């Protein structure tokens, strides 16, 4: 059993432990939770060469400061945030070594909403109902606080100083949607206007859902107030009583009586969750075949992520202490730092 740990020295207002979530409890009223940006989880796993099911720290809007008990490998993904180790700036979308005792600082999101700190071996807090994901709305887990010590799982080791090209998703754009239970309750005109409208993420957004601000008349369904409560899934776009759309995220309720105009397809969920202030989202209905084709491409891209990882090229402009680097030694850094590995 590993005794390595990561201490939270300072905590942003909304940092939680997240993994792929807890599917299978919809019938018990528990939504799956899990990372708001599941793609970022997969990217972190690829950078560290480990399983995408391991848990990471999700940082909403703002990071924190962390100190490691031992040398641990880390990776940073999702919404880019300013990060440094003891003052030395770190590349985002990359893996690094966090030496024992050093302090990693992660600042505010520069674009997007959710940044992720991945640890070699994962965050190994005890799982509840098969997952380590906090679900604040359900009372599972809690926001991380200064002084918390997170156990780190065993890490078989591997390279750091790797990067990958993140799939673009932080600046809004087109979001593909398919029919949901109450789509037919919205007139053709209303659906067309919904597709033609520019939406912004409203400040009233959290892991349960994103309220969308827009200019124009409310979006009303027929018989809006008399709809029997039905199942809700993440990605559903519900129209609240005042005709404002909410896109539901992983911590949403499991049933609801507001009509849903459509459901976001899974590959485009990260784009919704990560749309920052000012980003414009537009929705486009796709048919089932187009949605399935997009899902198939998305799964293939996820499976291919480890093959897209490449060494981080250091930008000399960002190396104020360039002269202190042992450039010749650097030429052998491709060797496995583990001496056992070198002998093989």
């Amino acid at each position, binding site marked *: 059993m590993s005794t390595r740990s990561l201490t939270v020295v300072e905590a942003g207002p909304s940092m939680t432990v997240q993994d792929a979530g807890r*599917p*299978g*409890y*919809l*019938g*018990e*009223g*528990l939504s799956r939770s899990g990372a708001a940006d599941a793609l970022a989880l997969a990217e972190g796993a690829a950078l560290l060469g480990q399983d995408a099911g391991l848990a990471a720290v999700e940082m909403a809007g703002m990071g924190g400061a962390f100190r490691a008990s031992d040398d641990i490998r880390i990776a940073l993904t999702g919404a880019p945030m300013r990060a440094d180790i003891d003052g030395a700036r770190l590349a985002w979308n990359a893996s690094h070594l966090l030496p024992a005792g050093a302090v990693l600082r992660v600042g505010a999101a520069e674009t997007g909403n959710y940044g992720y700190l991945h640890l070699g071996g994962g965050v190994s807090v005890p799982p*509840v*109902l098969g997952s380590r994901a906090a679900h604040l*709305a*359900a*009372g*599972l887990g809690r926001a991380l606080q200064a002084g918390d010590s997170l156990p780190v799982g065993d890490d078989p080791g591997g390279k750091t100083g790797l990067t990958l090209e993140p799939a673009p998703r932080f600046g809004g754009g087109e979001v593909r949607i*398919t*029919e*949901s*239970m109450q*789509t037919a309750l919205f007139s053709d005109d209303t659906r067309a206007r919904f597709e033609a409208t520019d939406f912004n993420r409203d400040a009233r957004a959290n892991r349960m859902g994103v309220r969308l601000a827009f200019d124009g008349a409310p979006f009303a369904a027929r018989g809006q107030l008399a709809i*029997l*409560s*039905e*199942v809700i*899934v993440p*990605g*559903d776009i519900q129209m609240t009583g005042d005709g404002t759309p909410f896109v539901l995220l992983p911590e949403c*309720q*499991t*049933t*609801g009586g507001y009509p849903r105009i*459509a*459901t*976001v*397809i*899974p590959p485009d969920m990260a784009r919704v969750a990560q749309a920052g202030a000012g980003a414009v989202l537009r929705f486009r209905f796709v048919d*089932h075949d187009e*949605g*399935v084709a997009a*899902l*198939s491409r998305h*799964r293939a891209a996820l499976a291919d992520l480890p093959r897209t990882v490449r060494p981080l090229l250091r930008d000399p402009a960002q190396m104020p202490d360039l002269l202190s680097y042992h450039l010749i030694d650097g030429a052998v850094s491709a060797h496995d730092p583990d001496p056992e590995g070198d002998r093989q």
Partner: protein
Amino acid sequence: MGGAVPRPDDFPAIAPVGLCGMAVRFADRLSEPANRAALAFRAALESEGRDGVEEVSTSLTSAFVRFDPLHLPHATLETHLRDMLAAQDWYAAALPGGRRHFRIPCVLGGEHGPQLADAAEAAGLSEAQARDELCAARPRVLTIGFAPGQPYTGELPAHWDIPRLKELTPKVPQGALVVAIRQLIIFANDTPTGWRHVGQTAFRCFRPEADEPFALRPGDEISLRAIDAEELHAIRERDDSGLGGAEVEEIG
């Protein structure tokens, strides 16, 4: 139970729920046969264990299937669901087995149920009559949803068909008993609500640390035993099971 209610027009119906979900709807308003149909249909889907089906659940009158469309094409699943619907009269299905009755201590009215008088008036009753009727009722868990383990129970007599409030109450506590539209709910968590807060229990619908984290299942029945605020306090002091002093009996 469950006299012959005519099958609603245009039901059962199959509806898409995004790319990876499909719902089988048995009615567009609550009825006892439609609720039984949904529960039985879900149970049948669950026991089948079909490849590509990832999860099944129910809401009040619908069964839901979450599936992987890359392994189970939409059209194949829809055809299969239609075949299942044609194979039997789901509205005549029996209730699930292994049902239980939970008799749950509850403070009704006063500061622990501040909207009891208001609810009674909406139902055309005195507060004392409302209290008596709520204690005499034995509603069934129709579905679990919205929040973990949270039961929607019903149905109360027709005069309890009182609407939700237009103005939300910002925060009603965990364990609260609330009423609207002939249904009673015990809240799993503190929550804002448009339902009227008529009582308070020490019952915890969701106890993640327990062997059975979700206390109630659809088909279970509940009834209320009136207690005073002092007894509620005493129950809270001694109860670490989450049952909140409830007595549980098997009812088959």
